[in-house]
């Protein structure tokens, strides 16, 4: 935790990308990026080069999450350096291409900020996804967005778990920001969800513009939900799901789940209860894409992070 006396200096955040279609059936991002590719007026800010970009065009065309493999898990060091050319899975090739254009990941040439636009079938509302508790630039941005959206809710999910963290498209940038808005079925465009995502981005770009102009952002605290673990569906010996998310848990993202609370409901009507040792805050409850990843929901715990003051270097 840095002391309040230290102001962290960051270089100007000039190169900003907005990714849509990382999952080809998550329609808010696809629609917004296509819109801004035709007419980028809305995303223009002084001192910012904002690039809208469809990351997985083949998946978008088929209106499917991915073609060969999940692009949002594909940015591993192994994949990014894999030889093999056109024999590689489509999304691995895309990851290498995206790394060339917006990276290389981990280098000084990488883009300053990437916003990756996602939807979820879970009732998560507006969620920002943070990948590092030490990214004070991102923490300050998220604080700004939350305050600008209030009283409307915008929560921060932080995935820093050493085993559960994954290599996202946005991880190519110095400051990766995930936007996750739901609930919205795959393949469907809901007006309220679309407009919400648009507003989050407006505030995010406003923040970057202010930062680049030299505004100093004083120290602040940010409430985050830290990923603890994934819980799978109960399955039989053949791996088939034998229970559904319980009606008492369905749609209750971010609400406390206490030991003994109903968690799953079997197909023949029995209740399975949560057996954890303490209260957790579940999210990504009943996300369509996570059935194949063996994830019915994730558990989180609430934490308050302190962001030091930041100013442009």
């Amino acid at each position, binding site marked *: 935790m840095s002391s309040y006396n230290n102001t962290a200096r960051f270089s100007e955040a000039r190169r900003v990308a907005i990714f849509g279609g990382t999952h080809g059936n998550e329609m808010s991002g696809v629609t917004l990026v296509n819109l801004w590719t035709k007419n980028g007026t809305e995303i223009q800010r002084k001192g910012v080069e904002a690039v809208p970009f469809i990351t997985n065009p083949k998946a978008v065309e088929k209106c499917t999450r991915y073609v060969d493999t999940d692009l949002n898990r594909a940015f591993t060091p192994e994949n990014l350096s894999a030889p093999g050319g056109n024999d590689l899975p489509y999304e691995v090739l895309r990851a290498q291409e995206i790394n060339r254009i917006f990276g290389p990941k981990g280098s000084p040439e990488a883009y300053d900020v990437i916003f990756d636009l996602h939807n979820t079938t879970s009732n998560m509302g507006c969620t920002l996804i943070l990948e590092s508790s030490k990214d004070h630039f991102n923490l300050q941005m998220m604080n700004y967005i939350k305050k600008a959206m209030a009283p409307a809710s915008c929560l921060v999910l932080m995935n820093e778990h050493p085993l559960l963290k994954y290599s996202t498209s946005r991880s190519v940038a110095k400051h990766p920001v995930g936007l996750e808005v739901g609930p*919205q079925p795959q393949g*469907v465009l809901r007006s309220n969800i*679309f407009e919400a995502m648009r507003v989050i981005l407006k505030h995010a770009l406003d923040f970057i513009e202010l930062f680049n102009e030299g505004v100093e952002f004083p120290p602040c605290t940010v409430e985050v939900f830290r990923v603890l673990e994934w819980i799978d569906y109960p399955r039989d010996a053949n791996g088939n799901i034998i229970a559904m998310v319980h*009606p008492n848990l*369905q749609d209750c993202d971010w609400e406390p789940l206490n030991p003994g609370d109903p968690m799953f409901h079997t197909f023949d009507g029995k209740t399975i209860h949560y057996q954890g040792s303490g209260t957790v805050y579940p999210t990504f409850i009943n996300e369509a894409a996570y059935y194949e990843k063996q994830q019915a929901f994730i558990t989180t715990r609430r934490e308050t992070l302190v962001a030091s003051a930041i100013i442009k270097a």
Partner: protein
Amino acid sequence: MESVSFPPLSRVAVSGGTHGNEMTGVYMVRHLQKEKIDKIGSVSVSTVLSNPRAVEICRRYVETDLNRCFTEALLNSPVTDSSPYELRRAQELNAQIGPKGSKEAVDLLIDIHNTTSNMGLCLILYSIDWLTLHILKYLQSKMASVEVRAIQLDIPIAEAYSLESVGKHGFAIEAGPQPNGVVRADIHNLVKEAVDHIFSWLQEFNSGSTFEGGEVEAYTLVKSIDYPRNPVTGEITAAVHSQLQDNDFKLLQRGNPIFMSFSGETVKYDGEDLYPFFVNECAYYEKKIAFHLARKIKLTLPPIKVTD
């Protein structure tokens, strides 16, 4: 009104996964098959996973929409190994639970579907079928806390394109809202309760009960409205307006908002008073349908009983 009689309904088929990503039917059929349910009282039950290849990849269909393959013409058309999978599968299903129009066909076919639209619980039927409408009336009386509606598509049976037209009687149960690829417990339990009531009704019917006549309302399809599109590229330029979204079956009148364009303009409805349904159904984007519009009609049901 004079009583109408029907032969006993002793062979019933329950199908799911006609669209491979509509999960209630998939899980219900799998559960019935796991429990090896093949008889419920006087009724013999066959369970069918209609489109197993689509279920496997959790997609609506593999090559073409299975639930448009059941017209007489398509069922009788010559197929080869290179014909679309669903065309061949439709003919297989027709041989298994039909043939459509013949006396070997199952007495009743119930096909379970989900929709991303906020339609609650609906029965979808072709033409006016007293039997199905009596089942509707029974469900309405037994499930009083839920609105159970009937949607009638006025299409002659030969041109009827969906699976339930294969049975002597048939209807689809449509339950939503539920995203593709997701099984919601509340939707599942609603459909299970409905299916349990339907089987109770079948027992009563087969054992000789008379079901009193009465009035039911049904929604009959009038027309469909597409999304506003770019005239050159064909791309959608607006989303269903938030005041129409999730308001299936609420009367739509001239001047009501129906779309919100991406540039912020409201598009208003200009037409006769009608009831929207299948509002923002995921699978209908490619069919160029943002929502359907229906007229509400009142039907007078005769009493019915099983033929002596």
